[in-house]
């Protein structure tokens, strides 16, 4: 992972800060610079709701190299309560029965770290509520 790229987006990753189009009201996560619905560039920051529902999920046994130590990784598509679809990991998934339709809440966990001497990447994961 790239520390400075992470730093740039750290608030997005820990607080789910996305965008809202000032013109048509459409909301986005990840943030956008151009509204996909109306094309406006008048965009403001908007913190996303932290609760949602599982739309799909999987258990990845072969993660990419930066996450190798954390296999298996539980990933899900979550429909947040404002209608937006977000991709994220599930926290404490190994001990839960995961179902499409289950309610989840965003929390902060360690995504990965750059070895013993690198930084720790903290970000959102969803836990079943």
């Amino acid at each position, binding site marked *: 992972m790239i520390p400075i790229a992470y730093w740039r987006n750290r608030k997005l990753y*820990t*607080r789910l800060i996305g965008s809202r189009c000032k013109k048509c009201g459409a909301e986005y996560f990840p943030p956008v610079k151009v509204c996909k619905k109306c094309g406006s560039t008048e965009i403001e920051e908007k913190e996303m709701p932290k609760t949602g529902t599982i739309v799909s999920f999987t258990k990845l046994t072969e993660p990419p190299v930066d996450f190798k130590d*954390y296999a298996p990784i539980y990933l899900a598509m979550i429909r947040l309560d404002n209608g937006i679809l977000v991709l994220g990991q599930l*926290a*404490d998934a190994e001990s839960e029965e995961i179902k499409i339709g289950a309610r989840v809440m965003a*929390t902060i*966990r*360690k995504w990965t770290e750059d070895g013993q001497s690198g930084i720790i990447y903290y970000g959102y994961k969803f836990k079943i509520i």
Partner: protein
Amino acid sequence: MRLNSAILGYGAYVPKYRISTEEIARIWFGEGSGPNRMKAVASYDEDALTMAYEAASIALKMAKYPEIEAILVGSESKPYAVKPMGSILSDIFGFNKILGVDLEFACKGGTEAVQMISGMITSGVIKHGLAIGSDTAQGRPADDLEYTAASGAGAVVLGQPNGNEIAKITHSVTFVTDTPDFWRRPKEHYPTHLGRFTGEPAYFTHIMSSVKLLFEETGYKPSDFNYAIFHQPNPKFPVEVGKRLGFTDEQLKPGLLNDELGNSYSANTLVALNAVLDVSKPGDKILLSSFGSGAGSDTFVIEVVSKPDDDDYIPLREKLKKYVEIDYATYSKWRNKIIR
């Protein structure tokens, strides 16, 4: 010290996983168990920071998000040796004009944070602060302390008393000596301790000295308190020290958690405080005495003023009912005890 700070919000976070001490004993001795039944184990993607975030989130919500001017986190398992958790929590919570530093005094880092922030509030230097104790305690394999070295976080939002607070902190004392009962050198992964020496000369001497100091300063006696919380390194010590000091089982019981959770080190007494505040009533008095190896003890007088006003708040013991037991292999993998 006469303090005049208020608890405006409190919260605790205990990871959902447990390992039984029977399972630990099975691996190392083929039989037996520890002094406690189970301990809480942080998942592989949790650390002192993530747990501090969880506990603080609950406390901040209960306190209705005041402008925080100091975030002090006590821990002996800091994710970074250099880079305080306050710096990370600053951007997570959106409080950038803060004093944000990590504190270490073994298991009393959390209560040190409470003292220091209370001091800043009492003297009027700040209006609101966040005191946290959080640890993923490292238990040396096959050592006695492996049974109890656990994970957890406790947080309190402190501010100026105004009559609407949940509780007031009216006094604190601290008692410190140079006592090498338990320590950790910088490059060591696990702490080292001197066995039975951690009992009388360390735990008992410091807690009793600190509590007696408080009694002298304030004129309070055990019967003035509805609850007593003592640092819980194992299930027996707090009960024993309570007895010696003249407290009853009823005063201690609501705060006893070691049997099911183990010892969350810097979070220990703050998590117990959470459990007690959940059941206490306005007008109740709580004595809280922490112990940090090295060694020292902080003792507080806490007066309950009102119940929390938060519809979403779930009492700690309710949350603790749901947990998942793991085996030693999973525990080893998650707590990084396996060389790859």
